[in-house]
Each structure stands twice: as structure tokens, then as C-alpha cells.
């Protein structure tokens, strides 16, 4: 199943990096650039992005008209080692999962983000051969829909 994984090494303790990730996301989360970082609807500007600390805490955006959009909820809260939360782009049919690990060695903390859940368990295996690489993507694609049917409304965990 397709998983997106990105990692970076940061010269700081894991306590500090975890705190920055959760407590100060509004100060480092990109606002504009090549990619889409906000789910602000047309005509709205992103103002804040916030994690509510602790298991079940909301991860949400606030727009310039004061309206809010919940992107996900914290499903694993293990400071300063691990953070997991759900992630739902309002234009997707289902939600996905983000897992962030913080591993410190010699004063350098490696942050690894794994974004998964693009496909649901139970996607049938497809025979090798024709379109193999693309099939994986398509399975992920189809899986968002399957995820949705497994998780009617609301976050899991």
C-alpha cells in the first residue's frame, strides 16, 4: 500500500522538537508555496493551525472569518517520542493517518513523518504484470472510499 514518508534531522533535543511540532505548529507550518498547506475554502485565508494536546485532541485550522475546520484528531500521544493523528482533506472521501516519530541521537533529533491509510485493509491483491505500479496507486485511491465505509463519521481511536 502506498505510504508517504519523509524524514529530517534537526539539531535539538527531542523534547524541544516535539514541543515545536505540537505547541508551535502555527509558527512553522508553511502558509504558502509550491504545495497546498491549508484547507481554507475559496475566499478565506488561513489564520491559525492548532493541536489540542493529548489523546483525542483536535488538529484544526482557523480561517480569517473565524470559522474552523477540523483536519483530524490525535490518536497517539506519547511525548516526546511519538505523535499520531488522523488527517482528512475535506475533498477526500476518507481519512488518512499521520504518524510522527522523534528519535534523538547525539543531540540531533530525526523526525520521521509517515502518512498512510490511503488504502483500507482488505484491498484485494492484484496479479503481477500489467500496470503493477499503477495498481498500487489505484488500490490506495479506491481505499479512501473503503476507509470511509469502515469509519462512518468521526475519528477512530
Amino acid at each position, binding site marked *: 500500500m*502506498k505510504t*508517504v514518508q*519523509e*524524514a*529530517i*534531522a*534537526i*539539531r*535539538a533535543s527531542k523534547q*524541544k*522538537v516535539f514541543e*515545536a*511540532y505540537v505547541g*508551535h505548529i502555527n*509558527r*512553522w*507550518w*508553511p502558509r504558502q*508555496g*509550491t*504545495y*497546498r*498547506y491549508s484547507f481554507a475554502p475559496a475566499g478565506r485565508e488561513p489564520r491559525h493551525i492548532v493541536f489540542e494536546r493529548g489523546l483525542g485532541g483536535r488538529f484544526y485550522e482557523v480561517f480569517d472569518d473565524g470559522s474552523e475546520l477540523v483536519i483530524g484528531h490525535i490518536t497517539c500521544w506519547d511525548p516526546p517520542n511519538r505523535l499520531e493523528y488522523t488527517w482528512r482533506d475535506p*475533498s*477526500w*472521501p476518507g481519512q488518512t493517518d499521520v504518524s510522527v516519530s522523534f528519535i534523538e541521537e547525539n543531540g540531533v533529533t530525526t*523526525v520521521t*513523518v509517515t*502518512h498512510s491509510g*490511503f488504502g483500507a485493509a482488505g484491498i*484485494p491483491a*492484484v*496479479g503481477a*504484470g*500489467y*500496470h503493477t505500479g*499503477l*495498481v498500487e*496507486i*489505484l*488500490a*490506495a*485511491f*479506491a481505499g*479512501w*472510499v*473503503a476507509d*470511509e465505509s469502515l469509519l462512518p463519521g468521526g475519528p477512530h481511536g
Partner: protein
Amino acid sequence: METNLDQAFAALSDPARRDLVYRLAAGPQTAGALAEPYDISRPAVSRHLRVLREAGLVTVETHGRERWYSLSPAALNDAQAWLEEVEGMWGAALQSLKRFVETNP
């Protein structure tokens, strides 16, 4: 791209259509061969195939009396492009986190 994806998601929300897509992943097939393993009628299968075609997920070619259905690489490329965008977003976000932490001692 978003319109395509929305339509594709809607098309894939039906289990029978997802199953048709998985089977087409093995290679092009005729409408008749696709309908064979199902209890549902051939017109019903044709309707599902039409929804998939309108969503841009499958293409159809007529050879003689048979209509051959194939997965559409274009729709899959959209999904691929989308996943690459998620990857790019995280790469840039982590760079930004690093800058923030390392410049705020």
C-alpha cells in the same frame, strides 16, 4: 484534476465498480467477460462500466462486435500526481520545522 478526482471517488464508492477496476488491472477485457462472474445482469454491468468511463477511470475500444475495456492511465496519473504532492508538502513542512527549531534556541 480535482473534478476528475471527485468523480473518480464517487465512481469508486461502489464495491461492484471497485471490483471491475481491480479486474481490469489484469489487462483489457470485453464487457461480456467482465459481466460473467456476477449475479447481476449484463445491462447492470454496462451501467457500472459507463460510470467508470464517465469518471475517466476506464476507456473503451470497439473491435469487431466486442467492446474492450481498459484502465485509463490518465486517471491513475492524476492519483500519482496527487500522492507526489502530499510527499512534497511534507518535505517542505519538515524543512520549515527544522528552520524554526534551529533558529529559535
